[in-house]
């Protein structure tokens, strides 16, 4: 009986997971990077803005060193301008991973605001954490 319920739960989770949408494979004019490429980018561009589009609670539990928390739905042009005043500055966006749409939504908004040099770490926090890369916890 327990096995049966476990199986049902697994099926439910699998179906639910399948229902959850994937982030787009690509966004026009936006460079997509892996965790390793993101590290190289960060190390090569000290002070490069890194935008964490997740919820604040998730950010507090752990984030990439130097990242700023800006939830995609709450992010305004003014908020971003306060961090990145120049429209041509390279900005790295990430959220929870490929099943998370926050960073892609944020990039779409930012593109509309005129920012041109956008980099998207599509694998996001899940990929970063799985690779046991350094994280910052507050």
């Amino acid at each position: 009986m327990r096995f049966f319920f476990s199986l049902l739960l697994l099926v439910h989770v699998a179906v639910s997971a399948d229902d959850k949408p994937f982030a787009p494979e690509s966004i026009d004019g936006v460079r997509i990077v892996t965790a390793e490429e993101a590290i190289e980018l960060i190390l090569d561009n000290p002070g490069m803005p890194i935008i964490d589009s997740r919820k604040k609670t998730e950010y507090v539990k752990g984030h990439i060193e130097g990242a700023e928390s800006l939830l995609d739905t709450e992010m305004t042009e003014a908020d971003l301008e306060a961090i990145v005043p120049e429209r041509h500055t390279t900005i790295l966006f990430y959220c929870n991973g490929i099943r998370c749409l926050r960073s892609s939504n944020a990039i779409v908004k930012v593109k509309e605001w005129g920012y041109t040099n956008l980099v998207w770490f599509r694998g996001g926090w899940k990929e970063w954490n799985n690779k046991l890369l350094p994280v910052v916890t507050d």
Partner: protein
Amino acid sequence: MRIEHLSIKSVTIAIFVMIGAVAMVLSLLAGSFFRESALDAQMSSLSRVLEVATQEMQQGIRGHSFDLGMKLAHSRALVEAFSTASESGNDGKLVALLDDPFISGFVGFSEINLVKLRVYSPDLEFVGESSVGIQGTRQALPGYLANLIRNRGRDDRLKGVDALWLSSQGPLHSAVIPLGGLRPVGYLEVVVDPAFNLKDIAAITRTPVSIYAMSDELLSTVNSGNDSEYLPVEYVLFTPDSVPAFRIVGLEDIALLSDEMARIKTVTITGFLMLAFATLLLALWLFSRFMLSPVSAMVRNMRAMAQGNLDMAVDNRALREFHELSDAFNTMASQMRMRTNDLERLLDLDDSAILCFDRDREMVYCNRSAATLFGYSGDEISDLDFTDLFVDDVAVLTARLEGTAGRRREDKLHEVLTCRHKDGYEFRCDSVINAIDVMGQSGHAIALNTVAGDDEIMSSQSEQRLDAVEQSLTSLLEFARSNPSLMLGLGNLGELSDVDPTGGVDKGTVREQVVSVMNLALACWERELGKSKLDLAEESRIWPVYIDKSTPTTRTLDKYLSLENCTKNPRSKRVVDTAEFVLRHLPDENSAACEGLRRALDEFRLLLAGVKAKSRQPEG
């Protein structure tokens, strides 16, 4: 044992019993193997569960170790203290900072057993360690982890690594994290004792688990504490460089499995046996219906035909081979019947009186001319012997042929015999007496022709005719020799049991009982009804009445009243009929004499039934 002694039924049953026995043994063996296989599968399953549970336990250690390590590795104070210690060698502050998690605690403090914190330079040189925790271990990064870090590529240089390793104090787990975040200044090693978490395996597997060090020291044990039946399953946890670290023994509760297996085994074997038994019964029924019964009927019919009843046919409703066999037998019987009829007709057509006697000098055959010559009916003449038919002592004549081949012409006796007619007068006949084989024993055939004149020599024509008759008779008797009861069909001489009883004892007993019943019947007849023996013969019409010298006699009936004179093959039906006739005519059915006769008749019938049943049994 000879094959002729085995019946199809016994062989069939033996084969099915063997098949059943083999099937039963195989089912028991299969049940045993099935249980072993189930236990093996259960052990394999638990082993895999233990492996997964161990991996999950290690995952927990890794998670907490990295959480602590990541937090410390980004501590600015620790990085500064590390830099100070690296440059100046003053590690006081560094050690204090490394001791802090042991003293102040950390997130997940209760989940792992932190035993050491160490820091290394980028070249993996030992820089410092916490003063708290395990002592006595070598102050260097475990070899496996050091090699891993040294040999990895640029892309992986910031990734944390971890491994189980074997220290002098026992197996330990280390997680190594770059110190200083994305711009590392060294490495931080978080050392944890995994034995603390091994008990989690029991919680994950939900089975009693005992953990042993490779030195067989018991590190942890979780037992269920009940009396269930357990099957120990061992799993060895290795370090990444294939050194055995722990021996984990899980105890699988197989009481339920054993009960289930026993139940399945019982149900399976019972079901199998019932099915096998049902199949056996069905097969036996099919065999009986389509093989044994038809064959039994065929054998019964064949035996009856072999005993002279050539008018019946073997039932050929059977499987093809038996059907063909029955048809062949019926064809053979038909041909034999035709030939026998031809011979019998030929003998009946002959003017000569032909009589055939067995070794006991009782008649076994006579043709129609013989009955006519002596004035008897066929039934009457069958009870007679030499002395009844001939005035001359034929026994003396036949004795001259004893010991000769009997079949050769020169061994024949040509005599003129004085015969006795039923009505008492005497007449003379030319005779040819041959010694012949009657039912495997010596017998005699006598051909008679009335003498035209005294001492007249038999003409050569008559002799030739007698020779032809003798040949026919010999052919007929040849059939009878291979089939003794065939004689009955020719001479209408009575029942098989009377002619061919199964043994001397039964035959003698039957004769004794015949004489007893006949005497009782005659006594009742005379005493209760006041009538004579002659009245009994005449009224019952069962016994012939002869006229000897103008005096009516009952020679045949008289023979049945004396054991000495009684024929060797008495006609039991006549005896039964006589007793029943007397019983029917007795005025008082409850008289003692009547009761005695009835009881004797019942015993005689039982005796006959036993004799007949015995005579129907197959030989051997």
